[in-house]
């Protein structure tokens, strides 16, 4: 058998090792790695196997050093192979199969809050920063809370059966009805608490209106109430201006026009300047002294203001909804846009 010198053997191993290293480091895909594995580490005809066979031709005294060198090389090449396999599995962009990056992503379906809820929350948030606490109350109301305490007397047209949803049940002689405004909640809160008071009442209200693009017999109101000694219309206007600026963005102007509501005096319509035009936002006024007296407050020591916003109206304007009936169609194609 042709003998081989130790030096030649070691050189052979080193050469193989650097070749394997280069091949594995540059392997761009799994096929290249596999080819390198077969070439260098293949069990039958791998080049390392071939070198191993040469061990037999070495002098006995050289065998321990040669063996160690061989084992080191084999370990190193195996480690390089593992590294190359891991590198490719790790998904380096340069190393994986290219993908059509314009393919659709795997869908993640998120739900959506109703735009009316989002509008109410926005109002609550802004008013909350101004110290107004959100409150709710019953939707089925009695005559006292829906009318009398709000200074709407028995002869007032607002009490007409055709203008309200009266229930077939009554409490004794007191007919019940679906509330026509959330001011009822303000009465309930004032009956239970003493000033100072800052609340926003919100919820569904009901008025017999034929449903069309701008009317629906069920809608949502947000009403603010502040009762504190020394409150004036200047506070009302200032709060509404802050609200409008926050809700609409920018420094929004607010305008009052005289109006009439039974439970406020003076009463005003509130216009806000939006896109260069005056937009009607809702009604407001100073709480009528009769209302303060009805809940046991002294109108000479405390004054207050109240304002109301129609949620559907402002949501419709904010989102470009032309027909408010869309808010109640519950079409997912509509709901998922908000």
């Amino acid at each position, binding site marked *: 058998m042709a003998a081989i010198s130790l030096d030649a053997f070691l050189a052979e191993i080193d050469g193989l090792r650097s070749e394997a290293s280069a091949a594995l480091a540059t392997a761009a895909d799994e096929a290249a790695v596999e080819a390198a594995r077969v070439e260098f580490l293949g069990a039958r005809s791998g080049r390392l196997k071939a070198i191993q066979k040469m061990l037999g031709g070495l002098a006995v005294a050289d065998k321990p050093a040669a063996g160690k060198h061989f084992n080191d090389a084999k370990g190193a090449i195996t480690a390089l192979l593992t590294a190359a396999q891991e590198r490719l599995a790790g998904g380096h962009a340069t190393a994986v199969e290219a993908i059509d990056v314009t393919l659709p992503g795997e869908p993640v379906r998120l739900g959506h809050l109703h735009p009316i809820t989002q509008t109410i929350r926005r109002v609550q948030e802004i008013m909350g920063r101004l*110290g107004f606490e959100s409150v709710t109350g019953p939707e089925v109301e009695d005559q006292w809370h829906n009318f009398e305490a709000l200074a709407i007397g028995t002869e007032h047209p607002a009490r007409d059966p055709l203008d309200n949803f009266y229930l077939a049940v009554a409490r004794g002689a007191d007919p019940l*009805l679906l509330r026509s405004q959330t001011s009822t909640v303000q009465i309930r809160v004032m009956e239970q608490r003493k000033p100072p008071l800052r609340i926003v009442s919100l919820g569904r209200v009901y008025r017999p209106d034929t449903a069309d693009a701008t009317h629906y017999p069920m809608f949502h109101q947000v009403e603010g109430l502040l009762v504190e000694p020394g409150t004036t219309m200047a506070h009302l206007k200032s709060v509404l201006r802050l609200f409008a600026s926050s809700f609409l963005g920018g420094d929004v102007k607010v305008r009052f026009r005289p109006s009439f509501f039974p439970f406020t005096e003076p009463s005003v319509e509130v216009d806000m300047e939006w896109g260069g035009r005056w937009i009607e936002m809702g009604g407001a006024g100073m709480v009528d002294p009769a209302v303060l007296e009805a809940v046991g407050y002294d109108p000479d020591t405390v004054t207050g203001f109240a304002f109301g916003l129609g949620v559907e109206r402002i949501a419709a304007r904010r989102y470009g909804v032309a027909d408010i009936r869309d808010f109640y169609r519950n079409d997912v194609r509509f709901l998922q846009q908000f």
Partner: protein
Amino acid sequence: MILSKTWLADYVHLDAPTEQMVERLLMAGLNHESTVAHGSDEAIEVEVTSNRPDWLGHIGVARELAVLFGRPLHVPDPQPEETGPAAAASIAIEIRSPEICPYYCGRVIRGVQIGPSPQWLVDRLATVGVATVNNVVDITNYVMLECGQPLHAFDLGQVRGGCIIVRRAEAGEPFTAINHKTYTLTDHMCVIADAERPVALAGVMGGADSEISESTTDILLESAQFAPLAVRAAARGLVLASGSSYRFERGPDPAAVDWASRRAAALVLELAGGSLAAGVVEAGALACAPATIDLRDHRAADVLGVDVPAGRQREILTSLGFVPEKAAAAGSSRWRAPTWRRDAWREIDLIEEIARIEGYDRVPEDQPIAARTVELSTRERAVRAVSEVLVAAGFCEAMTRSVVAEPLEAMESPWTDAPPLVCQPALIRGADRLRRTLLPSLLEARAGTLAVGAPHGELFEIAHAYLSRTAPPPADLRAGSPVEEPLLVSLVTAGEYLRAKGLTEAVLARLGIGAGHLPAGGEARVEYRALAIDLLAAGRAAEIVLHRRERQPVRVGVVGEIAATVLEAHSLIGPVAAVELRLDQLDFAVTAERRLVRPSDFPAVERDLNLVVDDQVPWAAIAAAIHAAAGPLVEQCRLMQVWQDAERLGVGKKSVVVSLRLRSDSGTLSGDEAARIVEAVVAECGRRVGAVLR
């Protein structure tokens, strides 16, 4: 109300262009709708608030303009010449129901010539949208539009028995109006009758057989006061609203009753001839009691936040027709309200007048308010927590109607045995039942959105239901209501029972309520019990029962698959599952303080158990046995698989594969310790539910 610009100019002369005029009126409370050219005139449509009937006549608006522009107001003072014999010889008037007609007066004109109105009158009526009839009828309309007091002219020749009787209608009494329709009256309405039959529906419309016709020669001119409620009952009850009823419902100026009568009589004499009988035939007493009001000088500033000097306050009130009287105290003034301002009777009403005329643009908008902190209510926090979970789970929030049609309320409610409350009128197209559950509405919404091709119908809603209380309602007006309004969160989803239950568990967990065995802070837990209810499929439904310390267990929810018949009724393809929870009974949990339980640093041990039990044994019983035996060392107890095989397991048996993850927070569990725990678990399962290890 439509105003004629040239007509207004009869009473107040303005140089201002129309836009400026309507702008000033707008800022004084008379909302402008539109301005339309009408020949040489302009028709200005305004919206009059219900407190200002004085603006339902041209003179009233002219009076406002005179104040706003600082111009004099000219109102004619008609004094028609009486040339005939005493009117009382022609007609007697009796009021039998003074509560619905306090005052009634008549003037008699004989020998009139009925014919067309002159062009100026036709033009003015046309501008404000009133059709011309004949000179006498046109005059009554004209005077109403001038001063706001409605009038009626009878053909005196058709008034039988020489008398006018003002009384309540008899229930069921027929009446044929000028429009030649016959109405059946109720005793809430007021009629003008002669000796035999009604000749007019008071304040609303005249009768067909006493109307002014071409053959009329003698007329009775009515001017009266009618109670708003009686007029409204007739106008709305019979769907017969008129310009007259509109004004009587709001209360015209009492002083205009006589003025309008004189004005109309003078115009009839001028345009239709005839001779006016002497005197006025009257009945009742004119209801006219202008308020006397004290105004403290400082009060306007207290309310408005604007300093309006006392002198300026007085100037405004005087210009509006308030009459100063001797002040009651220093630093205040006393006022008598004008007859046409019955809405002004308190100090605050005067302050509003001052603000209106002074202009709200003077109110500052930079007044600071003191800072105050607010918290969301428990209810609101719960609502937000729940909607957060459901939105994350892919649900869209729906808003369905609170009042539904009968088919949606035909089924059992999870919350009451009492029938639904009914409202009148229906909210919309036959929907008159206040719902006792949201689920049928949500199913309808799901069917609706899927029918139009929406990508999914996963919907939830948070809203109230309305339940009759079974206990007798408290008598106190301000105490509790006979209606209970639980706040519900409901959802509908494609899927089976376990899908809906998983969603329920997520919602409850977010609220801080544990399921089954878990103590969840020791406060509350829920239990699922099989339930039979119309809406849900038999065997695939559960009620959710809340257990709280020291409280009776209470049903707080239902969960299950929708019954096939219900799916079919809604044209829905199953399986569809649903959940409804009483948020008002669950919201308390959201307030529980969150305290950290530090995750253990020691490794977990996983052990799988294959238990064979009778197939009637519920999972809850097995889980309870496992937790009882292993205690706090069970970090997780997962059901991996349930299978049945009569040959391998025996008839009526099932295999339940459970994966336990055990972990201690004080040290690493050894294999021996884990084995002891598993042994205890198996023993407890054997003892409680007869389980054997396979």
